[in-house]
């Protein structure tokens, strides 16, 4: 069964503690007509939560100096093409982290409490690309849900 393509949409939020929840709720509402499964909407929510948390935490690290975050969504036959932009601090190495799986082969008390974010993004999203264009961070990803090809 072919899924009708959703028209492109964009949403904007200003970085803050609650901005990520707000953005995720807006996106899932926009995607409502696709009637995604729990697994598909979980994948989208998880990937975007990690991307947006990173922006709030690292691109705009000072709560007193927040900035805009834009999310553009383009539904194509091979899934949702998302572009997330901000005008905050650049990615440290000029590239998206590889997101290696954290080793759990350690003593209980040495278990990692962080570093899962990029692993989840790289594991669940396709075609992850980062670019710094003038003063803007641009991350593009594809999430292979709502396929019609």
């Amino acid at each position: 069964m072919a899924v009708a393509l959703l028209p492109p949409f964009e949403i904007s939020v200003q970085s803050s503690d609650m901005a990520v929840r707000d953005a995720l709720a807006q996106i899932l509402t926009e995607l409502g007509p696709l009637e995604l499964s729990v697994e598909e909407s979980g994948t989208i929510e998880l990937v975007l939560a990690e991307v947006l948390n990173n922006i709030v935490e690292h691109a705009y690290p000072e709560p007193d100096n927040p900035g805009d975050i834009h999310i553009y969504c383009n539904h194509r036959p091979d899934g949702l093409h998302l572009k997330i932009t901000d005008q905050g601090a650049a990615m440290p190495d000029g590239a998206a982290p590889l997101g290696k799986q954290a080793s759990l082969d350690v003593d209980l008390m040495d278990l990692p409490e962080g570093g899962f974010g990029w692993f989840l993004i790289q594991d669940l999203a396709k075609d992850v690309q980062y670019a710094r264009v003038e003063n803007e961070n641009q991350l593009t990803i594809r999430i292979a849900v709502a396929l019609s090809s």
Partner: protein
Amino acid sequence: MQLSTKTEDQLRIVSVQEPRIDAAVAIEFKDAMRAETDGGSEIVVLDLSEVQFIDSSGLGAIVAAMKNLGAERRMALAGLTPTVERVFKLTRMDTVFSVFSTVDGALKELRN
């Protein structure tokens, strides 16, 4: 961060009464867990059946809460909803905790 706690047969059951454990509440969750579990010696059963979503910060906070119990005290997880279970599986953290599908199942198993 709403947690409700009861102690039964040397097991401390902490139920999270929130739909999300995410970056916005991760620190609050860690502090609330510390308050609910400090000073005991019981195994802790963390009931996540109300939680629909966790992100990596939430996962980290649950790991931190377990480590805060100390090496002598265990934490088990119960009632994982589908997206929460996926986060544990993808990061292989499901191999670190004992995971039970329901609180009742956890109690039954852990009492023995």
